[in-house]
């Protein structure tokens, strides 16, 4: 396995009236060829901004890439002009979004929307393009694709629409698919079907996937590796099995612990107190200090940002003694 995408020390800040919002503040992560890499975090953690920057989708201004690189097959995506990045968008890197209804044009037939990327990137038109489109719909498990391809988006249900989106994203056989909360708006049974489609296609085509979600359980079922983001920084990163076997950072542990599924009935849910910090007024030290109850907040760094260290082969974590510590009560339980 070789590295497909190497993000190094990415910094994206938004310059607003209220000050500089450090949406992404020094994130480094790698996506290997053909793997599903998960990015987990809450809203405001920087997970979507990180992904959007790869396709040049950050509005600038107010956004500004302050530093870092995103090497994709040797090319730094952050330094490309609008014209150059268009060579990657939809061809080598595709994206699917949370709400398929807003990302499909309601006035165009699915056939038109599916063949469009082929026309743009492969100059494939007419019958052959339509055949590829039908094939793509069949791949994502849409029955009677030959007929249904001529329908409009509103004639599909939510789950089916997301399948159409996936077919559209994968039709050019990209090397990387970015999936931004693709199942958050779907019902559980539909979510399962869509997740299965993504995983099966990923296995078949060898496309690497960046899977963005806030749901740890989905990450566990889908991803080969997990990156946990908090307040614009990478907190912990490890292969999935390793991370769930031995979560180290207090935030990762907190996320796991606050899941109702891990609690007995009537028992108080563990919850991470408070709110994520204001990204325009980040503390100088560990940004999780104020909410750290599973570690030892008194040991958290206050003077500098904790550095990411490789604590074990492949397992990276922010080296903050307070967040790595285990609260005694927690150890006993």
């Amino acid at each position, binding site marked *: 396995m070789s590295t497909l995408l190497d993000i190094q020390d990415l910094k994206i800040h938004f310059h607003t009236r209220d000050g500089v*919002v450090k*949406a992404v503040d020094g994130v480094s992560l790698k996506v290997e060829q053909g793997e599903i890499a998960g990015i987990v975090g809450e*809203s405001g953690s920087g997970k979507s901004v990180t992904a959007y920057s790869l396709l040049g989708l950050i509005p600038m201004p107010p956004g500004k890439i302050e530093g870092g690189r995103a090497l994709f097959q040797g090319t730094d995506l952050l330094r490309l002009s609008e014209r150059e990045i268009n060579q990657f968008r939809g061809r080598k890197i595709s994206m699917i979004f949370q709400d398929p209804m807003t990302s499909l044009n309601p006035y165009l037939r699915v056939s038109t929307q599916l063949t469009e990327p082929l026309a743009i990137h492969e100059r494939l038109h007419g019958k052959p393009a339509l055949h590829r489109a039908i094939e793509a719909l069949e791949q994502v498990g849409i029955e009677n694709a030959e007929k249904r391809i001529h329908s409009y988006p509103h004639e599909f249900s939510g789950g089916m629409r997301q399948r159409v989106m996936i077919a559209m994203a994968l039709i050019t056989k990209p090397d990387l698919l970015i999936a931004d909360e693709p199942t958050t708006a779907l019902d559980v049974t539909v979510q399962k079907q869509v997740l299965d489609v993504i995983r099966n296609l990923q296995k078949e085509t060898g496309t690497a996937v960046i899977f963005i979600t806030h749901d740890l359980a989905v990450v566990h079922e889908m991803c080969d590796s997990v990156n946990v983001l908090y307040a614009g920084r990478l907190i912990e990163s490890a292969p999935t099995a390793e991370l769930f076997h031995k979560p180290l950072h207090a935030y990762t542990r907190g996320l796991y612990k606050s899941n109702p599924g891990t609690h007995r009935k009537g028992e108080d849910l563990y919850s991470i107190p408070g709110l*994520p910090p204001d990204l*325009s007024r980040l503390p100088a030290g560990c940004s999780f200090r104020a909410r750290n109850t599973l570690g030892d907040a008194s040991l958290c760094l206050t003077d500098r940002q904790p550095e990411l260290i490789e604590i074990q082969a492949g397992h990276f974590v922010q080296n903050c003694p307070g967040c790595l510590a285990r609260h005694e009560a927690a150890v006993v339980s």
Partner: protein
Amino acid sequence: MENSTTIQAANEPAEAGRSLWGDAWIRLRHNRAAMGGCAILAIIVLLCFIIPFFPFLPDPAAQSLPNKNAGPSMSHWMGTDHLGRDLFSRILHGGRISILVGLITTLVSLTIGVSVGAIAGYAGGRVDALLMRTVDVLYSLPFLVIVILFSALAKGYTNDFTEWVVSLTGINQDAIAPFTSLIPLFIAIGALSWLNISRIVRASVQDIASREFVEAARSLGLSHGRILFRHIVPNAIGPIVVYATLTIPSVMLFEATLSFLGMGVQPPYSSWGILIKDGADRMLSNSALLVFPSIFFILTLLSLNFLGDGLRDALDPKSAKS
């Protein structure tokens, strides 16, 4: 990107009471463009309504043919027109009428338009269909003809009204005649120019009525009136304010058209609309007759727009930090 608002509760003192309008005023005061507009409007209104009472201002109707088309001078600050009348005086006197026409007709049209649009949008169903078909029918009628018909019919009543006011207050008939003779015009324009605003309000109300806070209000058992006018209409205030600031100048100009047809202000009285129209006719011989009234009109229009934008922002609690 969501920017979470952190609220440090512990070390903040309790806050004083706030209301939408009180807050809006505070925010408006911090908006320089809006306050500038406000100041210019205030100056224009003061000029128009106070200066004419001072004796140094020439009579706007006094003609002096030897003096016609004179340039600005000490005695005629903005020169004179083709009949030798003082232009500055005519602008200020005309401004009174224009401002009154603009404000009153806009108020009438807002009251009707917002009520009809809000009720149609909120009630839906048959009420909506009935009201909106009425609007469609009114749209299809020739606006000008209706206004002319209406004010012709109302003329008799207006004279009675003028006499009644005179007998009641003892004011000189000549002083109020230019205003009372406009009443049918106010009502006619106001009563017909609400059509657009009603459609705009209806669309916003439909959108807002489907939001969950309205359902929450319903589940509290609030009356329909309270839901509509406390929860829904304030959320539609943006387009209403913007539309109102656009309506005032357009009504001012429309008055000139009607006056030209003999329905509105009659000579020797005047208004900005009439002055601009006359000025445009004589643009080549004396451009001052077009330029000076236009400056007043354009300043008013711009200030209204700045004030309108400022008001819309000020009335939206989200638009500014407080």
